[in-house]
């Protein structure tokens, strides 16, 4: 489903209407849903997760979301996760495994 999304998502936000500038304001997914770049996806084994939040800390794309009442549980935002595997590499409890995309 994600792969069907168009690349024609507006990259640029024109700050001043009188100039066309390569300027963007910080926003979620300014470059579109980069999750479609992924060839391996991280899958979190909730049973093994000790809520240390290292995956959240290390994720270079801020694609690990903190959820739950205490914001101490994690889940992957697959819209933006590029599948780099850093979270799986860093997890001390081997609670994240990389699964090949189908």
């Amino acid at each position, binding site marked *: 489903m994600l792969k069907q999304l168009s*690349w024609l998502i507006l990259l640029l936000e024109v*700050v001043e209407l009188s100039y066309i500038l*390569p300027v963007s304001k910080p926003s979620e997914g300014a470059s579109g849903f980069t999750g479609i770049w992924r060839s391996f996806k991280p899958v979190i084994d909730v049973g093994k997760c000790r809520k240390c939040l290292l995956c959240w800390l290390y994720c270079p794309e801020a694609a690990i979301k903190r959820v739950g009442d205490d914001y101490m549980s994690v889940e992957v935002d697959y819209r933006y996760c590029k599948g780099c595997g850093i979270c799986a590499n860093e997890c001390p409890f081997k609670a994240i495994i990389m699964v090949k995309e189908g």
Partner: protein
Amino acid sequence: MAKTEILTGNYAVAYAAKLSRVQVISAYPITPQTSIVEKLDEFVESGELNAKYVRVESEHSAMAACIGAAATGARAFTATSSHGLMYMSELVWWAGLGKFPLVMAVVCRALAPPWSIWSEHNDVLAHRDSGWIIFFAEDNQEVLDLIIQSYRICEDERVLQPVMVALDAFILSHTSMPVSIPEQSDIDEYLPTPGSRRKPFILDPDDPLTHGNLTYPEYFMEIRYEIEKSMNSARRVIIEAGRRYGEITGRYYDSLVEDYRCGDADIVLVNVGSSCGDAKEAVDLLRDEGYKVGLLKLRTVRPFPFEDLRRICSGKRYIGVFDRNYSFGYGGILHCEVSSALSGIKVPIQGFIGGLGGRDITLDDYVWVFKILVDMADRGVEPKPPIWVGLRGVV
């Protein structure tokens, strides 16, 4: 009252930057630019100029610092030359293509090898297409006037592009001439308040933005076209800034070119930079002998004075273009530009190459050049490949 002092071209640059109340200076020393930044450093140290002097390890970083300063709306200045400009090159393009209004003095010097510290225009002209407005100065007074005007031009909302002021190594940079220094209060009135610029965009930690990010082909061309629109507007802005400058100093710069006795001339020589002075003297000399010759000095190379050139050169018998630069495998860079600007106008154009690596271009050289043009016009011959003036063992 303006006061007159005996200044080198480099000191004229430094005084102009001080009068413009630049806020951030970042530069790396290189012969023959060094005394510009030394003098500015003195001004900062003595408290005469309230600016941040950023010491850097290279020209590449110097331009990066100036771009950063300009991105916050500050008035930034740098100066370099030759190999320094080439080392800075990547960021020169970044400043031009990113619409960062700042001013840089470039003391034109030949590129090595062979090693040279003397004048040649290839360093500046290598950055012809980088989105910078490019001025060439003829004398030290014009150097001072151009630096000040450049801030008014680059910070104008219709332009917002960086400006390069080129001055010939040693011939201007280290030669002392009387220079009239305007009153600080006049310049304060002439230029916008330093740091007041808010366009085209301003970096502000409270309202963050990203500039120059990856841009897909769907949007790229429009951003380039925006620069071209600015360059076109700059033609008018440069003239307005020059006129207003004349009102406060008495020195009017109201055209992109200087037409020296071209009106009734049959033969016109196109030239830039310091050697225009010698060419004017040759024009006067030959006029006295009855030759109808004139000099067309280009003040700007970008934006190119296309209309002026076509207006002044049409109907002439012969046009000469004198280049203190060379594009190997083609000819003089200005010769190529002038030829393209005059396309469709039936006038023969002969290129001349001279003064490379600081070789003297003398009055006699210009008399010789004009007489060759007169002779070619009289005999009705087609232009030849560029003639190298004073080339030993060949001509």
